[in-house]
């Protein structure tokens, strides 16, 4: 199939992304959306935050604009800037401004990674004013009724320096995500990849072993995303141990002893 370029604000998710609700997060998000409240997703990496956003965008039938924040992301990267075209300057909206104009869902992934001045830009959008000041244009952009702001944040691994400021976090409804319980996680992996239920259960067992090691040698246990990767490899015929080595162990650590230990744990199960 040819790949096609679509403008971000016109990018609708048409096929239902698989998402297995763990609690009442879907209802809460919907209610927050109706009430025009911004949402903060907390949780470790790979536990389904981004997938949840895709699912919600599909459910609410709104375009989803995702910005992955990095430490060089500036306010103008979000709001927009003047560019030179031919002999004159033109204003180009950034992704946040596009979302505000189009009434889309704007999802700022790993918001704490961005530079501190960036955070302040979203403040007027995240309270009852719901406006985006565009200083360089001398304009204030009012958000459309169906615009929605959501940010994500991993309280686990960031350094203290990158903690989310109170003035920011107190503007949001917070949804906490964690790795789902063993049964649900098995279900997710089986549905997402098509491997057998029993193999998926073994994978989850292995994941829980690595999660036991969190804090005593591993920074983070295996995420659901890694399990899905391993399961996909297995689905295309790679042996379970190889799939786990490449998709999980190697992704978790570089430490020699730890690698061997994790691989041994894996071969204890399969």
């Amino acid at each position, binding site marked *: 199939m040819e790949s096609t370029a679509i403008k971000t604000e016109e990018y609708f998710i048409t096929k239902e992304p698989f998402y297995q609700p763990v609690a009442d997060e879907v209802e809460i998000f919907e209610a927050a959306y109706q009430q025009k409240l911004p949402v903060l997703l907390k949780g470790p990496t790979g536990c389904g935050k981004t997938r949840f956003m895709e699912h919600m965008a599909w459910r609410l039938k709104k375009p989803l604009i995702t910005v992955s924040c990095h430490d060089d992301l500036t*306010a103008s990267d979000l709001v927009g800037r003047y560019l*030179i075209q031919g002999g004159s300057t033109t204003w180009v909206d950034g992704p946040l401004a596009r979302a505000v104009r189009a009434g889309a869902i704007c999802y700022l992934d790993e918001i704490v990674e961005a530079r501190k001045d960036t955070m302040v830009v979203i403040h007027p959008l995240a309270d009852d004013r719901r406006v985006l000041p565009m200083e360089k244009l001398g304009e204030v952009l009012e958000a459309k009724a169906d615009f929605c702001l959501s940010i994500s944040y991993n309280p686990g691994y960031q350094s203290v320096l990158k903690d989310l400021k109170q003035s920011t976090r107190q503007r949001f409804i917070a949804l906490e995500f964690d790795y789902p319980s063993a049964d649900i996680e098995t279900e997710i992996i089986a549905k997402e990849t098509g491997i057998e239920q029993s193999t998926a259960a073994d994978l989850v*067992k292995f994941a829980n*072993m690595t999660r036991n090691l969190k804090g005593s040698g591993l920074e983070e246990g295996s995420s659901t995303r890694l399990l899905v990767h391993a399961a996909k490899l297995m689905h295309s015929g790679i042996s379970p141990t190889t799939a786990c080595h490449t998709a999980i162990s190697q992704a978790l650590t570089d430490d020699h002893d730890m690698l061997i230990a994790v691989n*041994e*744990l894996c*071969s204890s*199960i*399969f």
Partner: protein
Amino acid sequence: MSSKLPLSSDEILKRLDIYLDVEFTFYQNEKHADVLAQLPLDRQKYLLAWIRRTASTHHELGYQFMMHSIDILNELDEEIIETWALHAMDVYDIKGLYPSLEVIRNVNDFLELAHEKEAGSVLEEESGILLHFAHGLAGRKLKLEQSEQAYTDTETIFLPAIEARLADKKQNFSLYKVMVAYMWAQARFGSYRVKLSTEAGRSANPEKFLSLFHAVETLRLEHCLARELPGLYRQMKQVKQQLNDQPLSAQWQEISELLSAEASTVNDSLDIVKKNIEILNAYKPFCYQGELNPEIAEKIMQARLDEEKKQLKNILRKLQEDLKDSKEAQSLEDAQSDGKFELKDIQEQNSLQDFKVEITLDDQPIAPPEDAKNLLSSILQDLGEIPEEYLVAAGDGEYDPSYFEEKEEDPDEVWKGTYHEDGAFLYNEWDFKRQNYRKNWCAVREQVIKPIHDNFVVNTMEKHGSLIKHLRKTFEAMRDENQLLKRQTNGDEIDIDAYVEALADAKDGSEMTERLYMQMKRTERNIAVCFMVDMSGSTKGWINDAEREALILLCESLESLGDRYAIYGFSGMARKRCEIYTIKEFGEMYDEEIKARISGIQPKDYTRMGFAIRHLNKKLLDIEAKTRILITISDGKPDDYDSYRGEYGIEDTRRALVETRREGIHPYCITIDREAKDYLPHMYGAAAYTVLDEIRELPLKVSDIYRRLTT
């Protein structure tokens, strides 16, 4: 060619006499020198070098090494001789002279050991992996220790030091792994949930009872392992086959069948033993099953349960009070409660999943804190249930708020006991004569300086008032700054000047530049610096005053700069009493307390430097920073009252600094020792130190040096 001739007997004797200090030790070396003279030159040199190295540890060790090594020189390759000598020296460090001489004398034992080491798996080498492995399996975090026999006391898994029953390293490692998993299964699947020693005591033949129980329970655990860790179970079977474990008799197979259900517990095993003790004999133990030590395990378990019960009750009490408080805060009417905790939904049992527990208080589900969850799951693991008495919040008499404070041992306490290394950080030390580390040689403890609230700080600020003002200004100028970069190819804003020029250029017909944007660039300093201050006895008086003044000025400067910094003092007396004095940690604010600690810096004992450098390296590595600096402020060369004096101390310090640089930390030294030029370049490198001529200069210079160092 003449230089290739072997050394003569006389030449060798001369050297041996020096190495072995015959002036004092009166060894008779003539005969040995004659034997050595027969060897080719390279062998002579090799042996002489190693005699010298071993003799540097102890003369007798060197002498014995010489006598024995000559005999075996032709049989062994050099690598084995080296490990043999190093092993003997390590034994000397840990156990003393006589055991180390044993190692030298019983070279054959060592050779056997060496052979085992070659094919065998050594616990010391594999324990890192095995420990991770054991922690990955669910349940209580077990420890690993070395012991003659393999067994577990439900808290620690004991394993033999070397496992060499199988042909190669890899297989022997598998055997270790299988043993760990089996011992873990004993703790996890509740082999000790029955009071084994009592049960055995009731039997007519306790010994047979125990061995029979061990055999039956092992079969049950094998079923558990086969169910939960099929991969491991396959390896288990493999290992058993390789070591010729007998297949089960028909009678035993039947028994195994009885225990195959997921629901079977240790009580089923016990029943089988009781019923069949007359007619059944235990099979030959499997290669991995080790021993059963019910007395030890029961003692450990009881002690743990008592402790956990107390902790749990305390936590519940706190939980109860917190809930009450919050209810009262919401002025709810049912603030009165009878405070009954109940347990719901115990999801056991013989599966790998962690125990899931839900507690309710007066029928309201509550979320137990993480430590309570761990306690509950540990108790469940031991008892298979949570008895009701555990779920009663602690009464006034039992309540002990200290459970919620972190327990810290008083560093001085350990000196009252016999075991002086308890709770200390252990660091290696470099022995340059031996060309190797002395392992875990220095016992390092952190002490807190007793703050003294006096006028010292105020006086210093007054004395150096104008200097402080000047320093603050200079340091403020070094802070992070935003820099506006003009004429960039991309950026946040248009550079109007550049644009106008470019338009003019375009009209003019010349090429239009692409550099039309401005970019805001932030330069982050991101520096962490650790100051290591000499607190040895020789700093008494002037120097101590100057050091303290320097630290005050430094703190004032650094506070205006915003770099992260920590200050530690160091001193020591011999290797077992190395002390680091915390003056300011990285996370601490520069406040009255810190000022009083600086004021409280007092001269202590000697200048042992290696351990301090190694310890502070570790501290620096814990801090996230782009640039890490370790600055030593000292008044003289390394020195301690044992062998640390002279070259040994300098070489160890140099080695510690090599380690520092290897970790990516920049070491620097500021000293007032005028002779420092003789040894500092050797230790710190040519450009990494400053010698001050006058003590008076110290306060003025330290901040200045820091500024130069970091810009």
